[in-house]
């Protein structure tokens, strides 16, 4: 899922003479895992009142074709005043070592900052991180938390490239790269858990983990609603009210048409019996375990 409007700036390639391109592919797209996103937001919530924006390091993996995957993030101490900016390198090193111990596959791929203003300080920090990720280029992720008016919440990814007559560390143009959110099945169900209760904007929401049957009930309800909508549409087309769309009609026929009667009759019953047997067996095992533990409590007279 793209996290922002697509930009055509990705086609900008710097082929000016005298530009020494770094070895290794320029990153072409960034995928973010939800863990990194939540860590960044949490860090933003915990910042000091004096700090306007917070920065931190991104960890992840790089693939061969230029895709960078951001797996996790941690916060880094930094201070920003009108005259200078300082980043605590020691802290950054220590935290990276610790994270590396748990997950050796993750390497530093870039840095993030909340707030989307890219100024000279960003260029300096980008330069610092590029030294860390050498020979590859560092990714910069600008997370907009949507707190300030007029700015929509979103994530944008950039790669820095030098600009100007004499390349200096402070001058760099940030080229936007497509960035999207990706999660695996397990993370998907975790996200479902988080978004299951309707969120009233501006307040914290509480959800309780539900049992399997409750979740099944919810998705069956959703499917039933969708079927109702489709039914209403088909009926309106049949009665001539609405002109039917050929593509939709064909799609419906493909999805709902083929009858699976023959297949079902043969294997369905045996599968049903298997499921019932497994359920009975599970109950038997559980009651056996319970009886056995109670027997241990009976005093032998």
């Amino acid at each position, binding site marked *: *899922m793209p996290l922002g409007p697509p930009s055509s700036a990705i086609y900008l390639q710097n082929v000016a003479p005298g530009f020494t391109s770094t070895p290794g592919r320029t990153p072409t797209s960034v995928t973010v895992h939800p*863990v990194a*996103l939540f*860590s960044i*937001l*949490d860090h933003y*919530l915990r910042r000091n009142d004096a700090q306007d924006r917070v920065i931190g390091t991104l960890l992840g993996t790089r693939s061969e074709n230029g895709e960078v995957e951001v*797996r996790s993030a941690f*916060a880094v*101490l930094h201070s920003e005043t009108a005259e200078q900016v300082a980043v605590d390198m020691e802290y950054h090193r*220590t935290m990276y070592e*610790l994270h590396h111990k*748990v*997950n050796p596959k993750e390497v530093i791929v870039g840095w993030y900052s909340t707030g989307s203003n890219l100024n000279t300080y960003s260029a300096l920090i980008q330069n610092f991180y590029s030294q860390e990720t050498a020979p590859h280029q560092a990714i910069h992720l600008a997370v907009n938390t*949507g707190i300030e008016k007029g700015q929509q*919440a979103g994530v944008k990814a950039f790669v820095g490239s030098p600009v100007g007559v004499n390349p200096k560390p402070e001058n760099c143009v940030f080229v936007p790269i497509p960035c999207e959110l990706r999660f695996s*099945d*397990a993370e*998907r*169900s*975790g*996200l*479902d*858990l*988080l*978004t299951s209760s309707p*969120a009233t*904007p*501006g307040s*914290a*929401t509480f959800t*309780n*983990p*539900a*049992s*399997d*049957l409750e979740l*099944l009930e919810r*998705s*069956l309800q*959703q*499917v039933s609603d969708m079927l109702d*909508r489709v039914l209403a*549409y088909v009926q309106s087309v049949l009665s001539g009210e*609405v002109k039917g*769309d050929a593509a939709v009609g064909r799609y419906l026929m493909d999805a709902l048409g083929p*009858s699976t*009667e023959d297949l*079902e009759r043969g294997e*369905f019953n045996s*599968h*049903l019996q298997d*499921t*019932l047997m497994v*359920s009975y067996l*599970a109950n038997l095992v*559980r009651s056996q375990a319970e009886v056995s*533990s109670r027997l*241990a*409590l009976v005093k032998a007279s």
Partner: protein
Amino acid sequence: MAATSMAAALAASLPAPQAAPTPSAPTYEAIPASMAKVIDIEAEIPITSVQLDAMVVSKIIKHAKEAPGSSAHGLLLGLDLDGTLEVSNSFPLPHHSNDEDDKSVKSVARYQGSMLRSLKEVQADDSVVGFYQGMTLGSFFNQTLVDTQAIHQEKLRHGGIVIVHDISQTARGNASFRAFRLTRAFLDAYKKSNFSTTSLIDHRLTFSTILEEVPLKIRTNALVSSFLGTLSEASVPPAAQTNPALATSSAAIPPSFAGLNLGTANTPRNLELVVEALDNYKTEEGNLAYLQRQIAREKAKADAYVQKRKEENASRVAAGLAPLPEEDVSRLFKIPPEPSRLESLLLLGRIDAYGKSLEETASTGLVKMYAAKGNTGN
């Protein structure tokens, strides 16, 4: 806001500095009643529920997915407030295969220390409140869990909370998190390290009373929920109300129906685990029975000896001779101590947990099959 008023109350309760050469006794003020719920220094308010932060949820899921095998475990950080334990952060512990090695224990302690220090510098909570563990198909009853929890009991307020996360159930579509802590009865027995039959009866211990479950909720703070809301809202164009053909869903996180799959991939593995656990239990029970028989034999021998002595003494007294001293039987016959039944208790718990997860898959599978059958119109 709470921090400043807490600090003010704490400052008010500290003794005032004395400049006199003879310092008078410090005067302590009682914590005002309105603040008693917030400042709970002695951990008097018992925990009734656990609250997990959204970030912790995703971190645990990620670590459990990436760890080799099912050995993901780590620490939970947070604070307890008025009966609710709020877990606000967590970090994974590196996987060490050899627990006996002294070096690895020290390195884990070092890792923990530097992680806590670093987190403190960015104003994250740095008090450990428990630990989490990932497991598959319900197999979390094992010795290491009990041991770690018992160790934590001493060091942490309210004893530690274990959060158990089931990876297989999450892969099926239902992110499962459960919070447990050790029951008082089990703690008493564990302190005495006495799990013989009599002690079990006294404490009424079955496998279901080792751990008690604490209700759990998940909290997404306002920022995260608004962020997720912008990402997952389906923007429905107004024309779609009349003509469903035009409705398109452009949500960044579309609703998933992964739970509707007939997921039977785990059933054979689950059944294998049940059979394995039953076998282990049978061997364990066999060992216990053998030891019991040995104890009975020794006891019988000791009793027979005492009996013989008594008869001899009786006959000698009748004959007018001095009675032989009754020797201390325990020095002659070594009666082995009663075996500990903790392992068999844990095995039973594991069998029960496997059975439970089997039941859940079977019940949902049944419902799904009838739903699929309904499609054919029978």
